[in-house]
């Protein structure tokens, strides 16, 4: 169904954080689309509440304003699609409701879970926890991806996760699991190159081998970011400019992804003051240069 529908070539995007708002409003010349975690611009009052979701009126007004000139792509953190105890159809409905006024060409979430049963209630771990790379996981994900795609007839992308501990008895390696996921469920990939780098650093893998092994036709979006060292691990902290190996991965991945819609730079608002406007501008300019070297000219998706 979705497989045949290509996404537009949007180009270079930046991930919204409230701290970046002045930059976004003043430097629209540096990016082609805005990505937003919609969950930070609504309040989820919890299961059983009516209304369940309350939109942030200021946030919605801001996105409407941005959308007049360029695409706004939702990258949600709220679905917890890997949670075994429930599938949150109401969250999918909320994304569908936002599509009514944002008219985005694709949307994404994380290949992970953060909600788990806790006694009679539910726990929100606050970090995305990995799913075992096995057929049982794929079987659980398949009907959920189908439900999302049935409700929103546009490509649904899942983002490869970072993991700091790995599960024993994995049935797939990282690339094999992502390929099997796409084949089994029909979803597409948001390939986070910084996450690939993080996992390769922490688990001693070659990130370029993953890019060689992955079915790049399924990759519709790339993420890039910077991170930091912490007690012998490298973290996906979204804390600054990309390290050179992530630039190298981007240069390697861009020509290999024929259906790519965009590449998005992520930085957390709390780290942005340390990075500043000039460095962010330099990152986006560098990404644009690589995009133009390897991909067709971006299409402007104004409202």
């Amino acid at each position: 169904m979705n497989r045949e529908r290509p996404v537009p070539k949007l180009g270079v995007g930046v991930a919204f954080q409230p701290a970046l708002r002045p930059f976004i409003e003043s430097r629209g010349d540096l990016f082609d689309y805005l990505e937003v975690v919609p969950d930070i611009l609504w309040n989820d009052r919890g299961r059983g509440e009516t209304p369940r979701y309350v939109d942030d009126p200021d946030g919605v007004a801001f996105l409407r304003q941005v959308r007049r000139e360029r695409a706004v792509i939702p990258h949600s953190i709220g679905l917890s699609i890997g949670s075994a105890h429930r599938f949150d159809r109401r969250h999918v409905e909320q994304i569908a409701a936002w599509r009514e006024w944002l008219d985005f060409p694709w949307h994404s979430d994380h290949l992970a879970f953060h909600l788990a049963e806790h006694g009679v209630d539910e726990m929100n771990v606050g970090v995305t926890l990995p799913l075992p790379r096995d057929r049982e996981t794929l079987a659980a994900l398949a009907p959920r991806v189908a439900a999302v795609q049935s409700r929103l007839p546009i490509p649904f992308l899942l983002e490869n996760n970072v993991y700091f501990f790995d599960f024993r008895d994995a049935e797939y390696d990282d690339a094999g699991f992502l390929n099997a996921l796409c084949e089994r469920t029909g979803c597409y990939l948001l390939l986070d190159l910084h996450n690939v780098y993080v996992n390769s650093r922490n688990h001693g893998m070659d990130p370029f081998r993953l890019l060689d092994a992955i079915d790049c036709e399924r990759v519709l979006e790339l993420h890039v970011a910077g991170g930091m060292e912490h007690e012998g691990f490298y973290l996906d902290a979204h804390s600054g400019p990309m390290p050179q190996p992530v630039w190298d991965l981007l240069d390697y991945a861009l020509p290999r992804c024929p259906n790519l819609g965009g590449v998005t730079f992520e930085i957390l608002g709390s780290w942005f003051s340390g990075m500043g406007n000039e460095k962010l501008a330099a990152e986006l300019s560098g990404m644009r240069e690589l995009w133009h070297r390897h991909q067709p000219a971006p299409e402007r998706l104004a409202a």
Partner: protein
Amino acid sequence: MSRRAFQSALARLVTDPDYRAEVRARGNDALAGRFSPRERRRLLGAAADRGMDVTRTLHKAFRLGKLLTQLPLTCRLLGTERLAPEVERFWRRRPPISFYFLEEAVAFCDYLLGRDLSALGVEHLEEVVRYERASKALKRARAEGRRPEPERVEFACDPAALLSALHRGEVPGEIPALSCTLEARLTEGGEVEWDVAVVEGVPVPKAVTAVGG
């Protein structure tokens, strides 16, 4: 059922250090649940993995960040040495439920107000906690689509001197005594506006003074 129990146990390994220590110490005996043999191996492996330390650090950073950003005055007044054990106790009582910062901040204030704060030996702590709680409760109500009633907080000292010192990043010194009540309300734009409502038992006409926050 097995996957549900597996994920619950994995989440607890991240959020509950006592549980993780028990699993590491007692192995399979600590894994009460209907796990498959493979799930048991995976849980035992995860519990022993150094990567679980990092995952817990990230979990704690996310959760603590909510309090530091939402309750800066309370956190400053408590100081790191007192804040850390209070946060640990709060987390043991309340598993992480919500993604949202305001809910966590209000819950932490309620936890503190439920304690005997005099035992902590921090002057003006209760007033500051109530002050920040009122502000967050108003904003939480707005985020939930409700129109909140004004909140009132009583002070036994000059709130302007106390709060301005904390806003400047200072631990307040000697604050002049003053019996007064501040009232907070939400503006149309969603900002919290504070006014002095009562001074030494005498009501003050509205909009005489605004106190930041």
